Each structure stands twice: as structure tokens, then as C-alpha cells.
């Protein structure tokens, strides 16, 4: 495998180094992303990936506020509204949250083209990472905020799982299942963010 980024190469080597006798390939997320970017098993293109990422915007988790529960609504105001604002400030978009799931214009055509332009700036490996990040949290807005260093991984997962966690406050939770899901999401999003970062920045190369 040939990698352009020295820190990324180190991090991937570290994944292998941290394994016991039994390899847990599923957990080696950076390795997986690197292989996907290199082999492109699903035969994707910058076009197909960009389109898939853009598709998330229309149904984005954080763009649909719940009006039924005032507590949930308040949490959404507190946690999601800042994320939307960050996006709009950065990209000059006017994306807004809706209170009805039937709403189809949370993002205008102009907004989407601005978002697409930002997405398209990324090279192919970075796009793979961006797609993985978006799909893991089921939200472009959350993934965007994490990738742009506005929020850390834990905060991002808190935002992505806001509804479940609010329900759990009222109804209790299945401890291990929620813990497991949380750590899964944290590792996916953080790995994806790192992958995008290391593929997007120029690092001084070093002879190993």
C-alpha cells in the first residue's frame, strides 16, 4: 500500500501493531479506508460519492426538529442549531431546520451547489473518508462540523444520537447496547475525520 501521508502511515502501522494474535480487521478502520480508497471495490467515482453525500442533506438528522416533546425540542435547539450555524457561516449557505418531516426545502438549490463545491474540493481518498463519516452519523451537518474541527468526536456522536439519548433519559437504556453503539460511532467518525485530514493536507514526506 502506498500512502502519501507519513502520519497516516504511522497510524495505520499502529493499528496492526495493536492487534493480539487474533486480528480484528473490522476495527482497523484506517486500514479499511485506505484499502477502499486504493482498490475502490464498489467502483465509485468522485461524482457518485459526491452525489451520495449530498443526498444526506435533504434528510439530514439535524435538520428536522421534533415538535412533540418540548424537552427534545430544547435539546435540539441547544445542540443542533449551532451546527447548522457553523455550516452556514463557513459556506455562506442558508440551510435551516424544519419542524415538519414533509418539508423539502431545508436546503435550497443554491445551498446544495455551495455544499457540493466544498465536497468536490476533496481528492478521492478524502471523499471516501467524507462519505464514511456522513454515513456513520447519518448526517452531513454533523460530519461536516467534526471534519472542520468545530466539535470533537464525542460531541458529534452526542448530536447524532440526541433523540435516542433523550428517550433513554425517560425510559432507561440497555446499557451494553448503547455503550457499544456509542463507541462504534466514535471510532468510525474519528477515523474517517483523520483519514480526510491526512489526505487533504500536505505533509513533509519523510524517508522511512
Amino acid at each position, binding site marked *: 500500500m502506498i500512502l502519501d501521508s507519513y502520519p497516516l502511515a504511522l497510524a495505520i502501522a499502529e493499528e496492526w501493531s495493536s492487534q493480539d494474535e487474533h486480528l480484528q480487521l473490522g*476495527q482497523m478502520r484506517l486500514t479499511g479506508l485506505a484499502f477502499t480508497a486504493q482498490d475502490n471495490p464498489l467502483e465509485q467515482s468522485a461524482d457518485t460519492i459526491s452525489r451520495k453525500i449530498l443526498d444526506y442533506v435533504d434528510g439530514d438528522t439535524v435538520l428536522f426538529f421534533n415538535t412533540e416533546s418540548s424537552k427534545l425540542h430544547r435539546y435540539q435547539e441547544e445542540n443542533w442549531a449551532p451546527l447548522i450555524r457553523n455550516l452556514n457561516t463557513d459556506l455562506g449557505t442558508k440551510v435551516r431546520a424544519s419542524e415538519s418531516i414533509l418539508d423539502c426545502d431545508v436546503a435550497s438549490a443554491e445551498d446544495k451547489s455551495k455544499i457540493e463545491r466544498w465536497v468536490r474540493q476533496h481528492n478521492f481518498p478524502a471523499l471516501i473518508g467524507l462519505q464514511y463519516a456522513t454515513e456513520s452519523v447519518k448526517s452531513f451537518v454533523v460530519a461536516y462540523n467534526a471534519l472542520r474541527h468545530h466539535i470533537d468526536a464525542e460531541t458529534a456522536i452526542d448530536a447524532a444520537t440526541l433523540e435516542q439519548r433523550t428517550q433513554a433519559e425517560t425510559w432507561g437504556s440497555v446499557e451494553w447496547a448503547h455503550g457499544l453503539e456509542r463507541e462504534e460511532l466514535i471510532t468510525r467518525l474519528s477515523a474517517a475525520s483523520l483519514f480526510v485530514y491526512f489526505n487533504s493536507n500536505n505533509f513533509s514526506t519523510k524517508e522511512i
Partner: protein
Amino acid sequence: MAEAAKKGLNAFATIKNIMSELKKVDKAFTPNSQQYQYLVEQMRADQVTTRRYSKAANESESVAKLYLSYIQGTRRLNTLQERYKGGEKTVEESARLVGLKLPERKY
């Protein structure tokens, strides 16, 4: 100025945490390893004043935190999976449950 100084300190602390995490899961993580040396270099670089005025001032801190989240999350995931993994009882354990013993093996 104090804000930037605080952020420098955070990246430093985060990298220290990264190193202690890696020591836990990787026996090969010693001062000789390239990863170790890279991290030490990052800690040093973070102390340099010019870095604090870079365009995304919190960028190096954010990247360090992302990596820490990644390796900590992986370790916690493993712990949870170990703790909550199911598994069938062995034949011997099942026999013992009902008060039986398996015949002795003579070899």
C-alpha cells in the same frame, strides 16, 4: 493570548494521553518506535509560539483529540465486546449444571 496558550497546553496533554493509551495496547510502543518519536516531535512543535497563530489555531489540538478518541474508543469497544459477549457453556459446564460429570479421560 491566554486562550492560545491554553490550547497549546491541551494538545500537549492530549498527546500524553495518546502515548499512555498506546502503551496499554501495543507492546512495541517504546521510545524506539517511529510513532513514539513522531508524537514527541508533535509535542515539541506545539510549544513553538508561531504555531499558535496558524490559521486553524486549534487544528493540531483537534487532530490529536480525534486520534485519542479513535484509539480510546477502539479499546472501550473491545472491553465492552469482551464483557458482553455471549457464548455457550462447554459440555462440561452444562453437565455440571445438572449434577453430572463427564467420564474421565485416560490419556
